[in-house]
Every structure is written in structure tokens, then in C-alpha cells.
């Protein structure tokens, strides 16, 4: 019996930390994959409506975002009022600015992928259709026909 205890005391038990970096790297790669670096801060209030027939947006580099909603910040409310506004990139815009904005993105995309460019309309549920119709008309004029009305999954039944 004493022989066993002697042997034990001689060796120092340490947990090997050599594999720790590997584990961390694995987590790191996971988060690097799922990360979407936001290129613009959203300046308007957008709570998208609920829907059931949802499609996932695929290639992020082929997606343009148009935000429509009431200005969020006080300074913007003072300047633009409480009416819903359009946000393109990181600034407020008029519907007539859309074709140029779309073209600027289009020329950065390889020609083969251009038909797949999608415009994601992130519109607040309380906005009226007038401004949305104007945006749709401009999109049609600039030949961006593939659009995606952003929505979140519906919870519960319809009303």
C-alpha cells in the first residue's frame, strides 16, 4: 500500500493546456463565419412586420439595403420632422436618389452575378404605402426587380 502512495507524490499532476488554443480557435472561426460586419448604422426606426412565407437572403455581397422609417435621433427629427424617411447607405435620401445608389453598387459586382442582386426593403410596419410605392417605382426604373420585403417569423395566429 505504501508503495502506491509514494509513487503518486513523486509525479506532479498538471492539466495539459496545449489543446486550449485549438478549442479557442475553433470558436473563433465559428464566430468569424457567422459575423456580419454592419457597414451602416441604422438611423431610422425599423420594426419589420411578421410573416410566414419567408425566404433567407443568401449572398450578403449581392444585397442592397433600403431602410424606411421614422428618424430615430432627436437631431434628425428636428431637421427632417417625424415623417418616415428613406435611408440609403448611412444617410437619408429621396426616392430619386435610388437609381444612382443602385448603379454604384451594381458596377462593383461581377457581371455574371448582376442578375442576382437583391434589394432588401427593411420597412417599418407603421409606415404607409405611399413612400414604399415611390421606392418600388424607382427600383423598377433602375432595373432592380428582385426585392425582398424583410420580415420576421410570425408568432401566434393571425390577429
Amino acid at each position: 500500500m505504501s508503495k502506491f502512495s509514494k509513487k503518486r507524490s513523486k509525479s506532479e499532476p498538471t492539466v495539459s493546456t496545449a489543446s486550449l488554443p485549438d478549442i479557442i480557435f475553433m470558436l473563433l472561426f465559428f464566430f468569424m463565419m457567422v459575423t456580419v460586419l454592419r457597414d451602416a448604422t441604422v438611423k431610422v426606426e425599423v420594426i419589420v412586420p411578421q410573416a410566414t412565407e419567408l425566404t433567407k437572403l443568401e449572398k450578403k455581397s449581392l444585397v442592397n439595403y433600403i431602410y424606411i422609417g421614422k428618424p430615430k435621433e432627436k437631431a434628425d427629427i428636428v431637421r427632417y420632422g417625424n415623417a418616415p424617411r428613406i435611408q440609403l447607405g448611412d444617410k437619408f435620401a429621396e426616392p430619386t436618389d435610388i437609381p444612382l445608389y443602385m448603379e454604384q453598387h451594381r458596377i462593383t459586382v461581377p457581371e455574371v452575378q448582376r442578375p442576382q442582386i437583391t434589394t432588401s426593403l427593411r420597412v417599418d410596419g407603421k409606415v404607409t404605402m405611399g413612400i414604399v410605392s415611390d421606392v418600388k417605382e424607382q427600383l423598377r426604373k433602375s432595373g432592380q426587380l428582385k426585392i425582398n420585403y424583410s420580415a420576421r417569423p410570425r408568432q401566434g395566429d393571425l390577429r
Partner: protein
Amino acid sequence: MLKKRGDSRSRVNTEINAGSMADIAFLLLIFFLVTTTIEVDKGILVRLPPWSEEEPESADVQKRNLISVLVNANNDLLVNGEPEELSSLKDRITDFITNPTKSENKPKSPDKAIVSLQNDRGTNYDTYLTVYNELQRAYRELRDEEADKRFGTVFDNLTRDQKKEIIEVYPMKLSEAESTDFGEE
């Protein structure tokens, strides 16, 4: 001489200390954790009709093939002239497309049905999208049913050719008229 040198080299521990590797990786990990927004961007995919300056030709559509859905500025629904609730809209559309009672006022076959959607400039976007969603849901459920009957699975799992076959039976012909401007925005 040479031999001696080699000996001394092998004695020195030449391993790189990997202990700080974990710290570096942690730092990067925390950075990505903070910047990550696991944003599932989903939505209703729509194809707009191309823009043309000319007036669209008035297609010769038989009245029995057309169902018109109007949404006014008060977010009320009017389907073929009758008031309708959002919750029963899908069933109404499904009933119109399939025409189970072989009515004279509904299309002879599902592929002839045309849904016309018109909204006001004062309609809530929320309501508009819900209506659009219900129209798509009606078609999706019909297609799923047909796919199940023919291939024993849901529409999304079919191959391209099989999908085409189903779409021929239930083509979604949706025509969006220009918004009216009666209500307040």
C-alpha cells in the same frame, strides 16, 4: 568538434511556447463576439415587373378568372366587391383558385386564375405585407398539397423539373395595380 556542437544543440529545449497562443485567440474571439450580430435576414421574395413608359396593354381577361383584392387607407379589405377579413383571406383565395363547387364565377382550372392586388397610398405597410403573405401562403399550400399527391413530399424538396410541373398546375399570377390615392398618407 562537430559532433560536440550537435550534442549541445539537442540539449536546448527548442519548443515554441504556445501558452500565449490561447490569449491571442481569446482576444480575437472576444472581438468577434462583440461585433457579431447573428442577423437572420429573411423576408418575402418578390419579383417586380419591369418598368415601361407605355400604358400596359389591356389583356383580355375573362371576369370569372380574376379575383381583385383591394386594401384601402383604413386597412380594410375588399375582395371582388365584398368586405373580407384578413384571417379568412387565404381560404377565400384558395377557394377561388381551386373552385371546388365548379362555380360559373370562378376559373375553370387553377392555372387560369389571376389575382389582382391594389392598395392605397395610405395603407399600412404592415397590412399590405400581411395581405401579400396570405396570397403567397395560399399558393404555397396548394403547391405543397399537389407535390404531396404526386411526389409524396413538400414543394421545397422537389427537383427543378418537378417544381416546374407543379408550378404549371398552380402558377402564381399576381398583378399589382398602381396604388390609389384616396386616403391620407
